[in-house]
């Protein structure tokens, strides 16, 4: 399995859950991976190195304006450049319009939306140096599937999907050969979601997705197989929004 041989990836929120599964799969396909998280991801990173992969971990709060530069610079000097950015870090805080607090909303937007913006802005020079790249933003099918409680989460992910397209069209028109797409997972069995979500009975496939199923989609978008795919949304949600 060498679909990403010679490529270097940065994955945020990679200490556990979907991010760890994504980092693992990228490594298995031959990429060198920088894992970042506000949680400790050293164990995940060590496990990947023990398996013979190229991996490193660094603590990073994606929402902090100055956090990205040193992490990307360290990644490039360690692994020789950057080809892939996976903005996976995200947070869900349930609230309705009547209960939401502005500071909470700003926190959610900081991690889910402003962080990916900072990451995309900071990574473009590195990708241009490599003659191209692939940006993959993990949105959610909550962009199209509304609950009263998803006011902050859903709107942050909808904005992220829209922002992704603006970046994709800009990079395309500039001739950078940098692609940008969003993936929209439905409920996936992770620590954040738990395994007994009431949503399960509404999923046509009758089960939650697995982290590996999301990671396989990231590999597709990260690889040169997807060279003509940009500014689009890929749903991995068991059919939830189709009916």
């Amino acid at each position: 399995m060498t679909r990403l041989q010679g490529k270097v990836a940065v994955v945020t929120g990679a200490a556990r859950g979907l991010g760890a599964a994504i980092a693992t799969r990228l490594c298995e396909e031959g990429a060198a991976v920088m894992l970042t998280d506000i949680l400790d991801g050293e164990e995940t990173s060590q496990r990947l190195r023990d398996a013979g992969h190229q991996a490193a971990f660094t603590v990073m709060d994606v929402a902090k304006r100055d956090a990205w530069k040193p992490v990307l610079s360290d990644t490039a000097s360690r692994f020789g450049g950057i080809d892939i950015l996976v903005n996976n870090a995200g947070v869900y805080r349930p609230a309705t319009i009547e209960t939401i607090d502005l500071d909470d909303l700003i926190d959610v937007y900081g991690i889910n939306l402003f962080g990916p913006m900072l990451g995309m802005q900071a990574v473009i020079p590195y990708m241009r140096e490599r003659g191209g790249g692939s940006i993959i933003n993990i949105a959610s099918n909550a962009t199209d599937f509304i609950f009263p409680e998803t006011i902050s989460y859903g709107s942050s992910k909808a904005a992220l999907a829209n922002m992704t397209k603006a970046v994709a069209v800009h990079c395309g028109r500039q001739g950078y050969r940098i692609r940008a797409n969003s993936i929209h997972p439905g409920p996936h069995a992770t620590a954040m979601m738990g395994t007994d979500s009431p949503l399960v009975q509404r999923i046509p496939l009758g089960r939650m997705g697995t982290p590996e199923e999301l990671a396989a989609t990231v590999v597709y978008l990260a690889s040169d197989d997807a060279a003509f795919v940009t500014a689009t949304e890929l749903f991995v949600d068991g059919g939830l929004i189709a009916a």
Partner: protein
Amino acid sequence: MLRLENKVCFISGGASGLGEAMVHRFSEEGGQVYFGDIDAVRGEAVAKECGAIFLPLDVSDEEQWVAAIQRIEQDKGRLDVLVNNAGILGTGPLETIDIASWNRLFAINVTGVMLGCKHGGMLMQRNPGGATGSIINISSNAGILATASDCGYSATKGAVRLMTKSIAINFARRGMSIRCNSLHPGPTDTPIFKPWRTSEKVSTQLDDTLREMIPLGRLGQPREIANMALYLASDESSFSTGSEFVVDGGGTSALAGM
């Protein structure tokens, strides 16, 4: 491990363009590939190139579908992947639509896809070990955004988009592991544009117009569309059903030229 190892695949319209690229790509990844087309000469030639098996098929004819699927069942006893790729361009401006051409367009682009899902889907339901499979219906970016000069083509591709979701949810709710998704290519470098390329000047103008539509600044290559079909055919996409997969260089996300 190849990505379609041991999977029995059928692709309609496999003798040229996107379908031909899929026949090659699926074969490279270990698929046991059958394909149909109305062009038997080109079909046999493509079959020879990559070891796939050609079956004559007019997708608008139900009897021919029955025969093609029967042959696959006799040979392999199963079907894992079906790509409803065969399609034709539309009927031109509204005022000049001729009803026979209109009916033929819908017979191929809509009825043909339904018949494939019906007979291919029924064989998938008989697969040893239970109902499994992946159906990929080739729509178009013209099934998402309108083409003003060709309401027929847009109408058929929009029909494929929603038919796909209905079939996907129906299978899933009945507990079958048969997935069904639509693939939406943008302008791709295939013989489908040949009728317009009447001179070098017209051909260049066409390419310029198409490029203006596409942020990546170029036409897609058939292999790039085949790569998405491969992703949907493989187990990598096992949690995706009833969804739309766009491969168009960003064309449906941007206003042309801006």
